[in-house]
């Protein structure tokens, strides 16, 4: 009954999306006002139907209605309610339904916010959005149908994958990822519409930039949450393993970051138009590639859903989207007329270009490392994997250069600059570089790449902090009081500028924290008997006991360690080993003592309840917590910049520009 209802809603959403998509494209050709109006109505209808279908599934999960195939597959009466809700995206079919849900939300909001504005672009954009929606509804209706009816429903189900039940972060990481991934459909629609029209006018840049920025924020947070989850749950003391699916989430983020920068060059100079739409299309295609990677069973990863038949369907969609994008680009890219040119190598726009090339280089590096095992297997028939050494040796240098560009880019003025200007802006931040690198050396940093990162980071930090408050300082020089100058120069008129420097400052902190925490990590392996105290990384660690706790869906062996520093107890850590009913191997959960300076992390490698002994790995990593903090700050900063301002963005930016140039002159 409830399964049939869900299926009916999905079929309805498929019809609405298909009809709306065709209407949108038709309205784009004929410029029919009524056609566009109907395309919009179908967009809202699609949204309503897919959201209702999702609500039906959530109700089925909460009511433990095992006659619905998906509920029988992932539901369980013995798990907590939050796990039941999270089950919605814990397995293949549900995750695609959730995708549709998020897409419905995005399309409805984007359609609503752009109604009656961008008449040139909106019809085709709706056509593209609903075209993608139709594909996902087709997946849910056919190959990944979660609404099969089970004639003889079981009394209880197995519950979702235990790894997902192990930590609350798992309840937030996937939604953020979907909000990031799925949201990239919206700028893709605008980019395709611009290409179809053969024009990327100034008016469409604002929705293009904002619709890219919002999913970029979610994607940034999602990547961080994924790393944080891996750190808190997987027990090897790290947060990034270059796992194919981690890479899949990083790839579109890299091209989206590049596009966010190149859009600014389009805004200022009217150049890089074709390049920008290419980046936006690549972002969406990489999202679909990532979806294929997680759901086809082709890549080996902690994220892999079980092998399924939907791999070929997603691959077909990827192929179609790829060829559509290439054809569109090839036929229309020359029509996107260029209005200006890059005036000199030492200019801000040239640095934007270097930034873009580095991001694209990073994208290719990570992409090749990810698919290389498939190439080797296809050519030589051998299994292999590309590990950390490849990625680290490639990504660390490119990342360091990017950090360097992050420093000098904002220091240079737009357009042509004199040698005197360049010296004045580029030389002083060397102080920051030397100070931070020296400070690192004093506290014991010896890894050359980490020292380089600190130097570039110090340089970038000084530039960023100086540039960040330029509007406020100018106002104060004109005699405005500090408070008013701050509100007006930073929070109101200069909001977008201020926001982008907050993002830059956070990025500098994030890169430094990643470099230091990964290169300075200390690992100690210890064996304990109950009551014994041993030392590791400046802490005294005492095993006080080991106990077993039985829960309905798992049994846990919990060991308790008291951590002391200089004789004073500072924390109690309880790493544990969980055995889930449905798993082949026990899953360890580490425990972490976090301070602003660094983390102490204990992971159980072996535990003996009877003899009360435990073997542990102790990881001491400096600055880890700053990664999470800085990425959250990055997201909040970018979100702050998205708050609509009363004055048009364009006129505001031309206002601050000559002032900024005068400041550096």
């Amino acid at each position, binding site marked *: 009954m409830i399964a049939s209802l869900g299926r009916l809603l999905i079929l309805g959403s498929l019809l609405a999306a298909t009809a709306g998509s065709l209407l949108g494209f038709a309205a784009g050709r004929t410029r029919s006002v009524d056609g566009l109006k109907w395309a919009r109505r179908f967009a809202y209808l699609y949204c309503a139907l897919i959201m209702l279908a999702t609500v039906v599934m959530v109700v089925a999960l909460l009511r433990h209605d095992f006659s619905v195939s998906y509920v029988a597959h992932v539901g369980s009466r013995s798990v907590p309610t939050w796990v039941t809700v999270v089950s919605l995206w814990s397995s293949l079919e549900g995750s695609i339904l959730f995708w549709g849900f998020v897409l419905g939300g995005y399309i409805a909001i984007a359609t609503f916010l752009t109604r009656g504005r961008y008449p040139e672009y909106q019809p085709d954009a709706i056509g593209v959005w609903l075209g993608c929606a139709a594909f996902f509804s087709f997946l849910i209706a056919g190959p990944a149908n979660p609404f099969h009816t089970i004639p003889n429903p079981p009394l209880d189900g197995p519950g979702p994958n235990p790894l997902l039940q192990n930590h609350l972060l798992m309840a937030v990481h996937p939604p953020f990822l979907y909000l990031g991934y799925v949201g990239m459909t919206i700028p893709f629609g605008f980019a395709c519409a611009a290409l179809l029209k053969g024009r990327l006018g100034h008016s469409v840049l604002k929705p293009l930039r904002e619709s890219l920025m919002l999913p970029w924020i979610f994607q940034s947070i999602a990547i961080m949450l994924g790393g944080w989850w891996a750190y808190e749950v997987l027990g090897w003391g790290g947060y990034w393993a270059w796992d194919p699916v981690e890479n899949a989430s990083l790839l579109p983020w890299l091209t989206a970051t590049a596009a966010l920068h190149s859009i600014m060059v389009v805004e200022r100079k009217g150049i890089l138009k074709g390049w920008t739409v290419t980046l936006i299309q690549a972002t969406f295609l990489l999202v679909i590639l990532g979806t294929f990677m997680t759901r*086809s069973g082709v890549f080996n990863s902690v994220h892999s859903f079980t*092998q399924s038949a939907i791999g070929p369907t997603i691959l077909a969609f990827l192929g179609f989207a790829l060829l559509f994008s290439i*054809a569109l*680009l*090839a036929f229309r*890219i020359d029509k996107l007329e260029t209005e200006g040119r890059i005036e000199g190598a030492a200019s801000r726009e040239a640095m934007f270009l270097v930034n873009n090339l580095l991001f694209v280089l990073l994208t290719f590096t990570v992409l090749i490392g990810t*698919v290389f095992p498939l*190439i080797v297997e296809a050519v030589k028939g051998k299994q292999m994997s590309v590990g950390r050494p490849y990625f680290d040796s490639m990504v660390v240098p490119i990342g360091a250069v990017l950090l360097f560009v992050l420093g000098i880019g904002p220091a240079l003025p737009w357009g042509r600059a004199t040698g005197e200007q360049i010296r004045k802006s580029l030389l002083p931040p060397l102080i920051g570089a030397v100070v931070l690198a020296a400070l690192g050396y004093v506290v014991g940093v010896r890894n050359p790449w980490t020292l380089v990162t600190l130097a570039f980071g110090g340089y970038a930090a000084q530039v960023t902090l100086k540039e960040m408050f330029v509007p406020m300082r100018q106002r104060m020089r004109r005699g405005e009081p500090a408070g008013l100058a701050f509100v007006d120069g930073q929070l109101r008129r200069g909001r977008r500028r201020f926001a982008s420097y907050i993002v830059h400052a956070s990025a500098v902190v994030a890169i430094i924290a990643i470099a230091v925490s990964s290169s300075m990590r200390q690992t100690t392996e210890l064996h304990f008997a109950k009551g014994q105290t041993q030392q590791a990384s400046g802490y005294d660690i005492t095993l006080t006991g080991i106990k077993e706790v039985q829960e309905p869906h798992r049994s846990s062996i919990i060991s308790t360690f008291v951590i002391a520093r200089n004789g004073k107890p500072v924390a109690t850590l309880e790493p544990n080993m969980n055995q889930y009913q449905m798993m*082949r191997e026990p899953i360890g959960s580490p425990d972490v003592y976090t301070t602003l300076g660094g983390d102490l992390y204990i992971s159980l490698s072996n535990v003996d309840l009877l003899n009360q002994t435990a073997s542990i790995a102790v990881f001491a990593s400096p600055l880890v917590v700053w990664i999470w903090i800085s990425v959250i700050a990055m997201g909040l900063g970018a979100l702050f910049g998205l708050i609509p301002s009363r004055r048009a963005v364009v006129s505001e930016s031309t206002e601050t520009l000559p002032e900024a140039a005068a400041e550096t002159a």
Partner: protein
Amino acid sequence: MNRTVLIVGFIIAAALLGVLFLGLGKNPAEIRTPLIGKPAPAFALREVGTGQTIDLAQFKGKPVIINFWATWCGPCWEEHPVLVANARTLQPNVQFLGVVFQDTEEKILGFLQQRGSSYPTVVDQAGKTAIAYGIGGVPETYFVDANGIIRAKYSGPMSSDILQENLRKAMTP
């Protein structure tokens, strides 16, 4: 029309789609063991219940199915009836042998009494045999031919079809 974009785009698209297409249908989780085609590592372990020592060498002359499992493993419960039923029909021409590790004898005995058994089960007390076979998780099943050579390996719960298919590899000379 921009030919460069078209050509470069199609080359990238063809390469990417080709590689992904070839990857379809392969199971990356399947770890091909280097032991296939090599003699099965020898072991002599104590049988649960009787306390007698069972030596792998004593089964030479007929195919042996060695199943690594543990009572704390859910998928092992799932495959247990499949193994017991197949052993009833295939023995004595094929020998079944269960190897339990990271477990207590008491729990194993309780499990077997409750769920039945039709072949010997031995305890790998120190886990040395499991290490020699490169066990990544339980259940894992090895198929050894009459000459003591490993011919196939399967990770995960066994079904009758999978068992028959792998056993065929150990039956053909």
